């Protein structure tokens, strides 16, 4: 390259001026406060003497919470406390990445964030504040025991649940009628479930679908059966898996029968990872019955999303050994242990289980509330008949077995359950292999965790 000085075209002065202006413009725009920054109204609230006037609460909520929590619960909270809420939304699928980064960065930009049983177990040691002695005991006592326990990890409470969302049994009355079954009666045992399933499986349509599309969905499908056997998957201290038991084998055999021996479960289930997709198949009229979350009932009544409007009935899940058993999808909120305003975050946790908000959970959102008293409100009984099944279902086990090694255990489950469905191993062999491999992961974890 020659070393000639530039002599024409854009002068260097012009170039530098332009570059400088661009940089200055960029720097200036970066300095402008974000539009969502909660700045207004603090003067007014400060004068009102409310407990948290002038304070800002940063809530990390799930995307599917925005419609109800941000729009309905947050304004009441702001009015009650004088605080301003900065709502930060995260998509369900991105939450793990977000939380992982929060742990790594010891991020204090969020005060409270949404949680559920799996997250609770995964992040309790590194991200969530122990609130065992912080939340008012009378408030916690009013909540259903199962959701409360779901956000408790090794004896310590890390979150407050706002719902008691758990799978119930849902069936298509039209398909039942066509098969000559009682349209108002759910099967009461696994044997009856198989009989009804065989009656409603026709050429080109399977009676039901168990999701097996990924580690989480396969594990949940298994656990929903296992929980009705009376079994207990982990030891109390979470150091041992207890799958190689009569109960563990019963549930595995049931799954094998559903997919292979009786062939009543849609084989497409091995590609379905979400209950949302499962619900769509049911709402298209292509499934007789399934284990469904209660909000699926409301969706099934929506003419824009359902072809089975008015044809759906709910009950409790038919059990294998016990009368019933389910798997939970409880959600709640936790406090970020790095938050500088934990007292305000605690006020939020107490707010979400207040009677006022709990009525909204049931009436506006269509989710079963966490506060047991809300089930008995006249408006709730009238507007959400499916909650009767939820209330009854709540009497039976529904743990999801969240643990810090949830992913590894789930991966082992899905691999060997699919191998069993493909006919490569027997249910006994699947149980033995899962027991051995999952135990290795558990021991590895505790070896590192101490």
């Amino acid at each position, binding site marked *: 390259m020659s070393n000639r000085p530039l002599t024409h075209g854009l002068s260097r002065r012009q170039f530098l001026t332009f570059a400088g202006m661009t940089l200055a413009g960029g720097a200036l725009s970066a300095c402008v406060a974000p539009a969502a920054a909660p700045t207004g109204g603090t003067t007014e609230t400060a004068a009102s003497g409310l407990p948290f006037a002038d304070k800002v609460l940063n809530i990390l909520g799930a995307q599917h919470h925005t419609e109800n929590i941000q729009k309905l619960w947050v304004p009441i909270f702001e009015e009650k406390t004088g605080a301003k809420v900065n709502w930060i939304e995260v998509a369900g699928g991105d939450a*793990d990445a977000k939380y992982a980064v929060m742990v*790594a960065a010891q991020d204090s930009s969020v005060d409270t964030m949404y949680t559920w049983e799996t997250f609770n177990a995964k992040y309790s040691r590194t991200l969530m504040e122990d609130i065992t002695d912080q939340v008012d005991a009378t408030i916690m006592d009013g909540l259903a025991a199962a959701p409360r326990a779901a956000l408790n990890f090794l004896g310590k409470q890390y979150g407050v649940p706002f719902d008691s969302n758990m799978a119930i049994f849902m069936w298509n009355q039209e398909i039942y009628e066509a098969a000559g079954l009682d349209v108002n009666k759910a099967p009461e045992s696994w044997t009856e479930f198989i009989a009804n399933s065989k009656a409603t499986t026709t050429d080109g349509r399977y009676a039901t679908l168990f999701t097996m599309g990924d580690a989480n969905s396969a594990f949940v499908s298994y656990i929903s059966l296992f929980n009705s056997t009376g079994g207990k998957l982990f030891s109390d201290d979470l150091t041992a898996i207890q799958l190689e038991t009569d109960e563990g084998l019963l549930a595995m055999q049931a799954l094998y029968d559903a997919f292979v021996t009786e062939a009543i479960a849609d084989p497409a289930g091995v590609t379905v990872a979400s209950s949302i997709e499962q619900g769509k198949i049911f709402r298209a009229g292509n499934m007789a019955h399934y284990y469904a979350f209660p909000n699926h009932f409301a969706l099934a009544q929506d003419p824009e999303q359902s072809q089975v409007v008015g044809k759906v009935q709910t009950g409790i899940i038919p059990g294998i050994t016990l009368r019933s058993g389910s798997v939970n999808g409880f959600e709640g909120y936790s406090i970020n242990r790095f938050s500088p305003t934990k007292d305000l975050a605690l006020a939020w946790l107490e707010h979400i289980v207040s009677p006022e908000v709990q009525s909204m959970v049931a009436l506006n959102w269509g989710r079963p509330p966490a506060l047991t008293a809300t089930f008995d409100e006249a408006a709730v009984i009238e507007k959400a008949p499916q909650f009767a099944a939820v209330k009854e279902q709540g009497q039976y086990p529904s743990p999801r077995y969240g643990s810090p090694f949830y992913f590894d255990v789930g991966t082992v489950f899905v691999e060997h359950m699919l191998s069993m469905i493909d006919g490569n191993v027997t249910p006994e062999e699947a149980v033995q292999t899962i027991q051995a491999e999952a135990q290795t992961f558990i021991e590895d974890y505790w070896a*590192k*965790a101490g």
Partner: protein
Amino acid sequence: MQQSISPTLESPERTTFWQRFHRMDEVKFGLLLLSPTTLILLIFLILPIGYAVTMSFQQIELTISPDRTWTGIDNYLDVATERAVRESLGRTLFFAALTIVISMSLALGLALILNESFRGRTPVRVLVMLPWAVAPVVGGVLWRYIFQSNYGLANALLYQLGFIEHYQVWLDKPTIALGIAAVATAWKTLPFLTLIMLAALQSIPEALFRAARMDGAGIWARFRFVTLPHLRNILIFSVVLQIIASLQTFDLIFTLTRGGPGQGTVVLSFLVFLNAFERLSMGKASALAVLLALLIIILGSVSLISLQARQPKS
């Protein structure tokens, strides 16, 4: 009165910044122009890569503690002995090979067709470019719906045409699911490969084809002895690009199969994600990411060298 010896020594002419800038030679000015890009690459590429390499030598288990401890090459040893990694490596290589074969053969065929004159060539060229405009995530969802077992297009079409008696579950077998993922990846990269091959084809002098015809060369002989030698460099370039693209594929797998059935489509890039954001083992995920980067560099270099070595000497 004593005069000053020299005005230049006594009071040297002061040059302003602008004057110095204006007299800057081209090398320095070139470096100045490069500096913003270098800075961006440094901040957003070099530093994160360096950080990831550092993390790969640390134990970072975010379910246990945010703290990190130096563990030397332990993560690499873990990764090297883990069954999931070995299986995933096999899948990744199979997936890459399949993607390259499908995309290269289709792209070459399409480029040859589009190089010919025929009625409606322009709309066809536009149509061929369409997949390029589709975001990978959207492409994944699209292919997922095509092969959805209950209401997917593939089943509906094949059933209507009488090729299948029942709707099929397409994504329940790892090999088939991986094959569909390879087709989807090839579909996405096809437009770019076709475009560069078409450009190369159009640069071949027409006189060569005329001369070949006069020498009695048929279609195959013209393709073998005129077209292919001229495409050699672009084919090498395309293969290397495809190796890199297929080994990096993540978004499409994530939306199409989420790694399923079971772990059947968990390729290495997806395994990095699972280790980082499901297992929260950042050290191990970083070690795996470093090894994946090395694999890409090695495979890319080997292909480049071996293909160039076959190039006939002029």
